[in-house]
């Protein structure tokens, strides 16, 4: 067999492998979709929506942390900015339909993300985390002081309104399917981004930044784009959350929230697509279940313990470990 034959053979096998992988992705997405469509008939829709909002938040965070290698410690700022903006607009301008409020909240969070990115992107590692934390604290204090946020009490009574002025979102099932549609759209978008030509550059930057520079990539620009998309999706999660709960609260802006999204992503598996979704589901459930019972005051120490265990023993998170296991035993 000639050299060219061998080459085209290998190329063909790589293409085949890509196809199998795509098919696997499609099946997994399908199963996920069916489960999520049926879920509100078994579980309380508002609880499910809470999970979806946090899952989107974690997916957004993971695009930056897991796929670009940038640890932001200020993502609460985008969640809160989306939430407050949407809450404020829907509460004060009755002419606005719900989706306009959500789009506006997302846009403001996106712009804030651009500002954060421009100020922080040249810092590396821990310094990057510290700059994002400091900026997020500024945003937090702004929301504490600003007259329209309701300070410590939060912003109550945000109307859910009507989607496109047609579909009544006061109905929990309607609301759920709207949140689900947005979540799935964003999830698929991130899936696409990660495997796109741009996603390959992100991967390269994450794995060896100076090599990416020496191949002619202006890495700062790629990182800024990733940061802005991540902030936009985090803002969208916050906007939807404020509509679902009809409440935008200071909790969402607190640094504690920035920590929680790191926890969700790490437990589920950073740098995997499903990881943050699973992580968010687990954390929201643990907080809720334990919050009901006698262990109420122990929620934070228990989550802390899980965090330590993950970092020490399952560094790639649940989904990451499962992937490793599957690859080892089936590949």
């Amino acid at each position: 067999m000639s050299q060219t034959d061998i080459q085209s053979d290998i190329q063909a096998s790589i293409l085949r492998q890509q196809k199998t992988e795509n098919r696997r992705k499609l099946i997994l997405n399908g199963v996920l979709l069916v489960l999520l469509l049926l879920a509100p008939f078994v579980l309380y829709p508002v609880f499910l929506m809470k999970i979806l909002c946090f899952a989107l938040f974690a997916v957004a965070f993971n695009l930056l942390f897991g796929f670009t290698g940038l640890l932001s410690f200020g993502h609460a700022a985008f969640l809160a900015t989306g939430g407050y903006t949407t809450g404020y607009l829907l509460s004060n301008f009755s002419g606005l339909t719900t989706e306009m409020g959500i789009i506006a909240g997302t846009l403001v969070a996106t712009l804030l993300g651009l500002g954060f990115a421009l100020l922080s992107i040249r810092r590396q590692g821990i310094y990057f985390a510290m700059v994002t934390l400091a900026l997020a604290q500024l945003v937090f204090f702004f929301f504490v002081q600003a007259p329209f946020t309701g300070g410590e009490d939060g912003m109550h009574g945000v109307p859910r309104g009507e989607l496109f002025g047609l579909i009544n979102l006061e109905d929990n099932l309607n609301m759920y399917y709207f949140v689900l549609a947005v979540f799935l759209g964003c999830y698929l978008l991130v899936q696409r981004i990660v495997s796109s030509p741009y996603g390959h550059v992100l991967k390269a930057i994450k794995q060896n930044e100076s090599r990416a520079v020496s191949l002619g990539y202006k890495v700062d620009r790629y990182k800024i784009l990733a940061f802005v998309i991540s902030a936009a999706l985090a803002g969208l999660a916050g906007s939807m959350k404020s509509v679902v709960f009809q409440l935008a609260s200071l909790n969402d802006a607190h640094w504690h929230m920035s920590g929680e999204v790191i926890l969700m992503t790490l437990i589920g598996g950073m740098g995997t697509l499903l990881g943050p979704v699973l992580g968010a589901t687990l954390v929201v459930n643990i907080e809720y279940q334990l919050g009901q019972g006698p262990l109420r005051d122990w929620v934070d120490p228990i989550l802390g313990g899980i965090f330590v265990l993950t970092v020490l023993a399952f560094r790639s998170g649940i989904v990451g470990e499962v992937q490793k296991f599957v690859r080892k035993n089936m590949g």
Partner: protein
Amino acid sequence: MSDQYVLEARSLVKEFKGFVAVDDVNLNIQKGHIHALIGPNGAGKTTVFNLLTKFLIPTRGKILFKGEDITPLKSAAIARKGMVRSFQISAVFPHMTALENIRVALQSFEGNSFSFWKSGASLNRLNERSMELLEAVGLTEFANTTTVELAYGRKRALELATTLAMEPEILLLDEPTQGMGTEDVDRVVELVRKAAQGRTVLMVEHNLSVVSKLCDRITVLAQGAVLTEGDYDAVSANPRVREVYMGTGSSGERGAVPEEEAAP
């Protein structure tokens, strides 16, 4: 004059706090040459490399590429102009396959690198060229292997192929044979020779037998300054070079007179 030299450094100086790492270095790299930068440990060879590719900012001095002043440009822009470097520690993307490593380099010129909405399948048209480059360095059968699993010598070969994918006019290789056994060294020498066809190469190298086999011209650095320059015979006959390599009186850890190491 400037047509003759692809790369020139003029009075290049790099000062760190209270310490001059590179002191008034002048380099003229002639087109088509394989030019070596040698010198004892700590002579400033890698620092010069970092300055030329702007991974470090020079304190003073000028860098000319094909006669054009590129001193103010950033690293990525310099790479795009056709001056591509490798690193001392093998610079690959460890969790990509060998093929993907090359594709990332090819993609640099595609203009689709910000297309986050496009399918990854759009990169498949780079596969064929990637396979050719892998073939050139003897890695065809490892195309679909994750790079982290490749042996050290193969990683270096992959790195070279990735660098070649950029179609550079001048290649800057930082110790391409570092940490290799004899067999791998011979392979790399062949690879560099092949890669240098129609190109210019500037390489930092410790292994003087490699230098003697490959290089047209040699610049010796010592303590941040140019000690001497010339072809291999001239440089190895220079008593000051011997002194620097021997150290005065001490047995010296590198301890090799160039001629001795050059012996086959």
